[in-house]
């Protein structure tokens, strides 16, 4: 178990070094002649208008919220999925009850019209 994670740790280190290396090479060989016009925000080619903080739709937030709850749900479901083959039938029903309770939440959000993009 620990060896597997040691391996992942080594993989992480290599996985960081490998993308950094070409960036370093680029930093060494690429020309560096900054000037204000070059450094200005590109956006879409013309002069930028206004602030780069645009107001966001709160809708993005609602979807992230529903997602958070379902994400945590799946964490509970993975151990359940591994266990049901070895355990009696009612354990399957417990998991189904778990899912159905959360589906009620999805139905509520749906009914409330929070899944519409307004």
């Amino acid at each position, binding site marked *: 178990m620990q060896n597997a994670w040691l391996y992942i740790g080594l993989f992480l280190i290599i996985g960081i070094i490998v993308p950094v290396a070409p960036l370093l090479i680029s930093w060494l060989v690429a020309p560096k002649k900054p000037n204000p016009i070059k450094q200005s925000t590109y956006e879409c080619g013309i002069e930028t208008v206004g602030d780069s903080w645009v107001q966001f739709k709160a809708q993005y*937030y609602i979807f992230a919220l529903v997602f958070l*709850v379902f*994400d945590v749900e799946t964490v509970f479901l993975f151990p359940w999925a591994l266990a049901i083959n070895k355990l009696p039938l009612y354990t399957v029903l417990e998991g189904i009850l778990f899912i159905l309770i959360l589906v009620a939440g999805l139905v509520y959000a749906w009914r409330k019209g929070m899944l519409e993009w307004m």
Partner: protein
Amino acid sequence: MSIPLSWYLILSAALFSIGLFGVLARKNAIAILLGVELMLNAVNVNLVAFWRYLEPAKMAGQVFAIIVFAVAAAEVAVGLALIISVYRRRKTVIADEIDLMKW
């Protein structure tokens, strides 16, 4: 595993204290919630360390850690929803300025 249990517990105590500082000292309500997250993580480190060091064959520590995940998720969902709702009405996220319910 040559790490004494106390190392984990001290680390978790330090993390908890830093989180507590964040909760007490920050003005912004979202930053306060960030501090709460740190405190919950400190608790989880403790739970998992006790599971590993005392009784790895019983799953109590891991189960509780997962429940803490669920609690943290619920807390963040409701907490941030409240903060955003308050922000929409009062245009502030400074915890001290949200004082309508003080008296």
